[in-house]
């Protein structure tokens, strides 16, 4: 009996000790992580709109150059020359993919795309963050829709080469872009005069 009580006490004490350490670490790290995330989103939007910035003046450049427009709880980021950017999210192969896209003022041509967050297979699907892949989207047209085709076979101005060895991630990204554009485009078209 005495042994059992000692055992339970031991687990309880160790458990609460470790829990309090975790709480401490969390209360210290959470604000930093939150700030990192906001910075990351601002950075991605700026990159998508191709507005130059450096790591020290992100917040300043962001608030000086970008007008934030809210439509039915969707957020649009509009730059001074009329480019429109918004966040896109959807399922990837292992976890969610978050991305930012910028459209030129005609709302048909892609200015550029950046990835904010992804959990694809390291080294395979994770290459959707690579410059080589993302640069392919520049100046492509989103009508009727973006198509990601077998590597080396992209011909039309709405076609992009997939990543070799990451077909599923490429397909997921294709679906994500098209779905989100369908969701966001009518809103911004209605709001922009």
């Amino acid at each position, binding site marked *: 009996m005495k042994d059992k009580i000692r055992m339970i006490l*031991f687990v309880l004490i160790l458990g609460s000790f470790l829990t309090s350490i975790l709480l401490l670490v969390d209360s210290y790290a959470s604000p930093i992580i939150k700030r990192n995330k906001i910075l990351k989103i601002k950075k991605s939007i700026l990159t998508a709109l191709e507005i130059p910035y450096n790591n020290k003046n992100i917040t300043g450049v962001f608030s000086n150059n970008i007008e934030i427009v809210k439509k039915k709880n969707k957020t649009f980021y509009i730059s001074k020359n009329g480019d429109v950017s918004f966040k896109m999210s959807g399922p990837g192969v292992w976890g969610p993919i978050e991305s930012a896209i910028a459209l030129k003022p005609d709302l048909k041509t892609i200015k550029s795309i950046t990835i904010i967050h*992804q959990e694809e297979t*390291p080294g395979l699907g*994770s290459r959707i963050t690579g410059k080589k892949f993302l640069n392919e989207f520049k100046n492509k047209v989103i009508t009727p829709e973006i198509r990601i085709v077998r590597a080396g076979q992209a011909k039309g101005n709405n076609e992009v080469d997939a990543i070799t060895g990451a077909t599923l991630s490429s397909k997921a990204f294709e679906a994500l872009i098209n779905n989100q554009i369908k969701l966001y485009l009518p809103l911004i078209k209605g709001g922009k005069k």
Partner: protein
Amino acid sequence: MIFARLKSTEEFKTVANGLWRDHPIFSMVLGICTALAVSNKVDNAIAMSAGTTFVLVATAIIISLLRKLISTRVRIITFMIVIASFVIIVDKAIEAFFPSISEALGPYIGLIITNCIIMGRAEAFYIQNKVHLSILDALANGLGYTYTLVSIAIIREALGFGTILGIRVMPAGWTNWVIMAMAPGAFFILSVFIWLSRTLAKIEP
């Protein structure tokens, strides 16, 4: 003479076992899933090894300090909560201070919890040995895990991407062996590695 005396000390044996004779990956074949998953790029392998080594050392300290208090019936749950806590600390610290590494490794940091090396060493060693020996054992095993992961990653990244640590090493005309970047490549290289080192260490199957 000095070496012979050094060789018979417990400390030396502990380190030698971790680095070579009882090497976690090729002798005990533990920690294989992470070794397969993150060995496709050298920087991922280094970050993962550093995280695992930190958790190993921290677990070694706590478990060996508490070894006389831990009753045998609750030892597994004790290992679990200690390991899980440190993994969460590592995860949070990397997310706060190295967001880009955290992005690259994605869910794999959390998977350190499932790395059998830590559980295995806690059960086999830390629960029975003094703190300084346990720390040595943790460092040796961590280093053993690190050099294995990094050497596999060097081969896989060079063949699969033509780079090492992102720096181009293969000639310009090199065609990337995509299979090396994928899981089958990891199986090939890891099994060749296990075969070679078991033959060298004269471990009977």
